[in-house]
């Protein structure tokens, strides 16, 4: 980067702007292992009692079961979104589909289109299909709503594979399916990994759909459990407990993000080429 300008003022400005985030995330971690006297900002004692929910199910409900349920939801998202997107993405990127222009335009519009506005319609589809209040319904809906995005991302990855690879494969006598399976799929592995991680994170953090579409399901996920703790306008929240549960809930997210940060960056931009 260019070195002709002073760095210090920039550091001050950006630190000031980032202060709220630093405070929020700093105290998020700090508060889980400390106690502060009422009305004080700074904690004065170290404690692990906010983590008692890990073994004491009366503190915050059955977090282990909820974690398992959340993992099931998140993994199901991967299982739905990744295969379906990678198949459709390939078809749309490389094969002679009828109405291909229309499909591409549709995917792009749906990609931009705010899917949450469809929630009311989705609610009725699930009612009619008998999938209301089931986790399967939530998974299918969540997966379907993520598809345009997934297909678009995968199309981008397929587009980056040279056509000559495909031509060479066909010329070598392989069918298009074989070419796809043995020659093209291995080239888009980074895309598959990125999309998998993204779908997992998306499923892991999801709150709205399980809450609205499966309120009576016995598969409580962590987001619903955590929000259930806070619900109601009680005074005297145990924020330290909420934070501890929240941090516990978010640990896998942070871990995955730390591992795959670079691959995820392209995807967080919305799969846009900017």
């Amino acid at each position, binding site marked *: 980067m260019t070195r002709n*300008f002073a760095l210090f003022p920039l550091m001050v400005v950006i630190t000031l702007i980032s202060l709220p985030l630093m405070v929020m995330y700093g105290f998020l971690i700090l508060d889980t292992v400390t106690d502060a006297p009422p*009305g004080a900002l700074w904690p004065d004692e170290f404690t692990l009692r906010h983590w008692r929910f890990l073994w004491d199910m009366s503190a915050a409900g059955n977090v282990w079961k909820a974690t398992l349920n959340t993992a099931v939801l998140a993994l199901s998202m991967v299982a739905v979104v990744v295969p379906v997107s990678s198949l459709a993405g390939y078809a749309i990127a490389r094969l002679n589909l009828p109405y291909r222009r229309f499909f591409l335009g549709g995917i*792009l519009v749906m990609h931009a289109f*705010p899917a949450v*506005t469809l929630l009311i*319609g989705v609610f009725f589809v699930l009612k009619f299909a008998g999938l209301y209040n089931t986790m399967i319904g939530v998974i*299918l809906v969540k997966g379907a709503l993520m598809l345009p995005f997934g297909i678009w991302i995968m199309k981008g990855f397929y587009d980056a594979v040279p056509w000559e690879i495909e*031509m060479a494969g066909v010329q070598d006598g392989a069918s298009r399916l074989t070419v796809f399976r043995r020659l093209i799929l291995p080239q888009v592995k980074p895309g598959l990994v990125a999309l998998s991680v993204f779908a997992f994170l998306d499923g892991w953090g999801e709150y709205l759909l399980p809450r609205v579409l499966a309120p009576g399901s016995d598969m409580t996920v962590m987001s619903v459990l955590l929000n259930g703790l806070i619900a109601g306008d009680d005074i005297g929240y145990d924020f330290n407990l909420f934070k501890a549960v929240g941090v516990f809930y978010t640990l896998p997210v942070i871990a995955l993000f730390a591992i795959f940060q670079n691959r995820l960056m392209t995807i967080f*931009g919305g799969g846009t080429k900017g």
Partner: protein
Amino acid sequence: MSSFADPIVDGARRARPVRPRRAPVSRLGLILMAPALLLLTLFFFLPVALTGVFAFTDLSTSTGIGRGDYVVTPTLLRQLGDKGLSDTDAEAVARSSVTVDAAGLARARAAGVDDRFLDEIERRFMGRDYEAPAGFVRDLRGLRTAPRRPRDLKSAAALFETSVLNQRFATSQALAAQLEAMAPEIAPAVRARIVEASFTGARFTTENFRTLATQKETARLVGNTFLYVGATLSLFNVGLGLFLAVVLFYMPKGASSLFSTLWLLPRITPVVLYAVMWKWFTWEGGFLPILADQVGLPSFNYMKGSVVTAWATMITLNGFIGASFGLILFSGALRAIPLQQLWASEVDGASRWQQVRRIILPQMRWPILFVTAYQTLSLLSSYEQIWLTTNGGPGRTTSVWALEAFKTALSNYTGNLEYGMGAAMALVLVVVGLALSLIYLRLFKFSELVGRPKIEI
């Protein structure tokens, strides 16, 4: 390749016009698309269609989702009376008569009335009709097996009463026939009106849109939505995003990636936890109020305590999530600017501000347009964060269109969910969303993206 004016032609080339063969449809393509198409149809196209259909109905919890019945209730009669039904007609509809028949006997037997008593009723009065229940009760009192207690007698007699009131009819004809039998003096037109009004299921109506167009609440929701989208977008998604991108651009790599990770955190933090953090940050007993208290500023629940602070909180907490999108996109665009341009301007003696304004910002026009188009759509429809934090409060001062649509249809505490009204509100968003995403499609240079498949087999 379009011009074929070549002077050096050997001659025999202009043959019959060529009819190009169409590239064959890839069956594999259709198969690969099938799962996606199925899911998208079920949970994308169908919901859009249902939203469109239900927007024109008065579907709600009270109408139920299934087929409706025809029921005349006292409440309905009162409502009809307000709308001009005469009292005599109302009385006629509400009239009950007594008939001793097999059905009545069966009802009484099922209700546990003494068998001997019933046998006697059957023997003595079978087939008789009474205009008023009082006459029947008098007759019953004369029976040898009649119950001693007047209350038992009355309740047994009531089992033989028939009335249109509170009876469920599957079809309009059944109700009309019954009404005609019970109250023949009611004019057919009036009867039809009663039957029509007695339908409990959902009806097609444009009432939702008329309500939306006339109620004062609509204007406020639209205003709130514009304020929310406009302020969040300009201050944070574009403004802060651009600012961060430019500042990080000038920072050394380590610090730059540290801060960009920090700003990405709101996006990857699960929304529920993010809401908890903001509550802790702004509620009484939370960080900011304590801090304000210590330095002598007014300290209260900033998230819900006053309209101004509620708006500020709501815009900031959404903006912090949105800023990272702009940051990523703008950073990418900044990296695409050739460094030579910047060096050249530095050699020319430009200050940093001049460099940003003259060289960097002009090249950011397209990304800014893009972020604006894209984020307008997602802000317009996002309500999850608002729902989990201010929830439109205090009162409904910070409620936006999408949140209100959601609450109307799927989540309110009165228990009567107005699906039709909610769908109508959602339909407005769907139409606006479609229009905006078509604009977005044009920004995307769509035609460049639909290159033809290079293998024609």
